[in-house]
């Protein structure tokens, strides 16, 4: 009896979860995402750029984010590289003893 009462509730909850899982997630597109071509900004006519224009602000934000993202990736890669060198150095010295 109890099972019968809860069946529609469970079915509705399951349907809700299934439908929300179908929602289009922006992260799905990250794999094939194109990087912003921020170098193109250098060739734009800077005298005509209005810093109060939302388009200009959005472009600046996009390119700043991209630069920071690249910098942090580089830092991470450099840190990883240093860690690897350090650990290989330690291993090397252990082998010498």
């Amino acid at each position, binding site marked *: 009896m109890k099972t019968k009462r809860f069946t529609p509730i469970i079915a509705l909850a399951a349907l809700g979860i299934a*439908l929300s899982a*179908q*929602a*289009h997630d*922006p*992260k799905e*597109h*990250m794999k094939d*995402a*194109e*990087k*912003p*071509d*921020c170098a*193109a*900004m250098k*060739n*734009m006519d800077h005298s005509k750029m209005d810093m109060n224009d*939302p*388009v200009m*602000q*959005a*472009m*600046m*934000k*996009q*390119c700043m*984010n*991209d630069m920071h*993202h690249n910098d942090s990736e580089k830092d991470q890669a450099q840190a990883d590289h240093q860690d690897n060198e350090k650990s290989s150095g330690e291993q090397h010295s252990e082998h010498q003893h």
Partner: protein
Amino acid sequence: MSALTTFIKSLVITAVIVLVGGGLFLYSGLYPMGADVPHNRLTYWLLETLRERSVARAASDIKLPGDLNAPERLLAGGADYNDMCAGCHLKPGKTQSDFTLGLYPAPPNLTLAGDKHGHEHADNTENDDPAIKRQFWIIKHGIKASGMPAWGPGHDDERIWNMVAFLQRLPRLTAEQYQILTARSNSSVEHGH
């Protein structure tokens, strides 16, 4: 009295003829349904009027958010536009695609201002509230038998408003600006919801 009876009789006979004729035409299969044959003027006008009146009525109560000009909205909406809409509604530097050539009615070229992309009612000029509400409603609910899907079931209102915000700027974007704004970066993902 006899004049009234004659009038009513004529009215009934006319109604029967119209109904029977319409039914016969409907079942005859004579109307061309292929997307490569345009509607006749009367059908086009009827369908367009039906669509525009319905959208205008349904969209009239929509409340616009106050921050449609926020750069974050342009970045989030631009990335979604590029992924979901540009195939049919084009991007700066493109004048046609397989979809614009094959769909009927042809999807409007949203890189052009409202008065230039062939939709008289879609004047998406700045601060044109009815046009902005119309865009939101169409993106959310789609249009029957036109190829325009309803994005509402998989996308929340904020995400649709982001796309609407981007559409207000699209007609004035260069190809370079479009590329930068629509590239899907971490910031566009963060502001996507």
